[in-house]
């Protein structure tokens, strides 16, 4: 159990910056998720923590002890790799026992720890097998077992579920959470999957191009994204993001983009007043905040904007119905009741609930965050 601090951490490969000025604290017992697209630096940050990559600038502390110059084995961290990294020539027992053997633990204690870990992970029947005779999920559990027996201060997990099929991913996700709940070990978890991030992390760190974009609780990051990147990265289906400009019409501020004219709510207008009229902005409305009105009975209100649109695509996914509707210059995705009898080509009214909408400035930053 340990507290981890990244202080001004940077990593450069030649002139290219893989990680830039990351300041982050992971509290004791916390499950922190590093989320971002491929190449954003999240795995590099994890490897610097593990000692598998050198730090170009900055310090890493584990329980107030700087570990930059400590070799990996002396940092008291254990890592679970994306491709498991099991030793193919060893049995499951030997794979799990390997770190204990390397650190000189006696055979009796090794046997006890390996047996315990195998019981926790349901690996008892497979101890004599080699990795080639195991399924993906079983291999992942062996990799976890090898990490658990070390009783490390910190678990590092580098996209451990990405090689599993969808159903197994859900199952293993639950197992990981149960394990964390039981062991309470500080965990840093890397993923590009927002579902994993939202469901697993106490906090998530969204990264892009080596920079930390936002840190916060999953729901907070989802509800209050600091910029267009975070807003677009979290949420499925993706947030509706449209660029346009602000235009004052009397005492009401409008968002205008081509033929689209959305009167802003008082909340959004107060944010927009910090900008000049005609300023370039972007509006973001999540699909679940758009209602599809087939009979055009909706009434405009301060926080409800109405748009006429034509349905271009209807995607039933079982629990929801995704309706893709075009309004002249823009396409809007709405998530609605799966039993709504909407057809492709239908003329509908889209009711945009602006209560949770976002307004982003010319630099992409959320005006509400300033």
């Amino acid at each position, binding site marked *: 159990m340990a507290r981890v601090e990244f202080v001004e951490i940077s990593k450069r490969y030649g002139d290219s910056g893989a990680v830039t000025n990351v300041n982050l604290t992971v509290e004791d017992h916390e499950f922190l998720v590093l989320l971002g697209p491929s190449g954003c630096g999240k795995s590099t940050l994890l*490897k610097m923590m*593990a*000692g*598998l990559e050198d730090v170009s600038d900055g310090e890493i502390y584990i329980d107030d002890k700087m570990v930059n110059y400590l*070799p*990996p*084995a002396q940092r008291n*961290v*254990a*890592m679970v*790799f*994306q*491709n498991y*990294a099991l*030793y*193919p*020539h060893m049995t499951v027992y030997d794979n799990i026992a*390997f*770190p204990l053997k*390397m*650190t000189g633990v006696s055979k009796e204690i090794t046997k006890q720890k390996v047996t315990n870990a195998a019981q926790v992970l349901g690996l008892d029947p497979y101890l004599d097998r080699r990795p080639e005779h195991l399924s993906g999920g079983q291999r992942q559990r062996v990799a976890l077992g*090898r990490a658990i027996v*070390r009783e490390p201060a910190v678990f590092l997990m580098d996209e451990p579920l990405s090689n599993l099929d969808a159903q197994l991913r859900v199952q293993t996700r639950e197992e990981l959470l149960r394990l964390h709940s039981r062991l309470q070990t500080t965990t840093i978890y890397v993923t590009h999957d927002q579902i994993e991030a939202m469901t697993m992390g106490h906090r998530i760190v969204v990264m892009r191009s080596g920079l930390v974009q936002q840190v916060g609780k999953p729901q907070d990051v989802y509800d209050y994204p600091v910029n267009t990147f975070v807003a677009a990265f979290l949420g499925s289906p993706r947030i509706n993001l449209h660029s346009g400009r602000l235009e004052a019409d009397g005492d009401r501020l409008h968002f205008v983009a081509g033929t689209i004219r959305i009167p802003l709510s008082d909340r959004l207008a107060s944010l927009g007043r910090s900008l000049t009229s005609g300023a370039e902005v972007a509006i973001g409305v999540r699909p679940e905040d758009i209602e599809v009105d087939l009979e055009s009975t909706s009434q405009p209100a301060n926080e409800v904007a109405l748009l006429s649109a034509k349905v271009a695509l209807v995607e039933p996914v079982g629990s929801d119905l995704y309706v893709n509707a075009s309004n002249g210059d823009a396409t809007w995705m709405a998530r609605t009741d799966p039993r709504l009898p909407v057809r492709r080509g239908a003329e509908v009214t889209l009711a945009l609930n602006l209560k949770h909408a976002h307004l982003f400035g010319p630099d992409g930053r959320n005006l509400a965050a300033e």
Partner: protein
Amino acid sequence: MAIETRFEELEPDLQTRQVAKPRPFFRADNAYMIMTYGILILATLIAIVPFLYVISTSFKETRSLFSYPPRWIPDNPTTVNYRKLISEHPFERWLLNSFFVATVVTAIKVIIDSMAGYAFAKMRFSGRDKLFMLVLLTLMIPFSATLIPLYIIVRELHMTNSYWGLILPPLASPIGIFMMRQFIETLPGDLENAARLDGCTEFQIYVRVILPLIKPGLVVLGVFTFMNQWTSYLWPLVVNTKPEMMTLTVGIQSLRSLFTVDWGILSAGAVLSMLPLVLVFIFLQRYFIAGSIAGALKE
């Protein structure tokens, strides 16, 4: 909905259906196959006939060596050539020298080449790639260009007519380093990372993780090296002049005197020197093939 098939609906189809004519044997693709096999059989005969003739000659008496027409199976097969070879010449000494040198060179090269291959494939150090290029460049230098300088060095170090002179120079061959690097490069990088986190030193990673996984590569290198050393002729000829230090290849060649050649004994020597290689090939032939294409294909 039941699916029904009525025979009368099928019958017209059966009546009008064309029966396939038998295909002629002498079609274009058959002719190609015959030609291909013909060429392969001819090439095999060209390669194998000399071997068979040597074996046949080794069991013939001297007087029947040049009989006409030549007989593939001797009328009175005899082992006198083999007995003479062993009793009148230091054949066992030649055999021991070849076996000792080939085995020691193979054992040392497997160790040092795999270490060097691991360093070039997986370790990070300044100048690694340039150093590897330099090692590869030495492959382009023909042995005939380095023979004399190498002899001078060995002579100055007083290693002529000794096992050191036979063993040390072949250890510097870079082909094994290249082969091992190619094998080791195919191993996932996360395996060593996991081993580092598990507490292994670099040497322990090499011994406990890398070596067990490149066993096929080690066998290929061992077979390749042993075969090269067993058949090596020019260097052993140059570096050793004493009869007791001759290897098998040099010793058998010494059976040819200036004016006469006892073909029977020479053939017996050739057969006996060939035997170990044939046995190695029979049991490890897949490693011969792997060695010849090692590194040619991206895994």
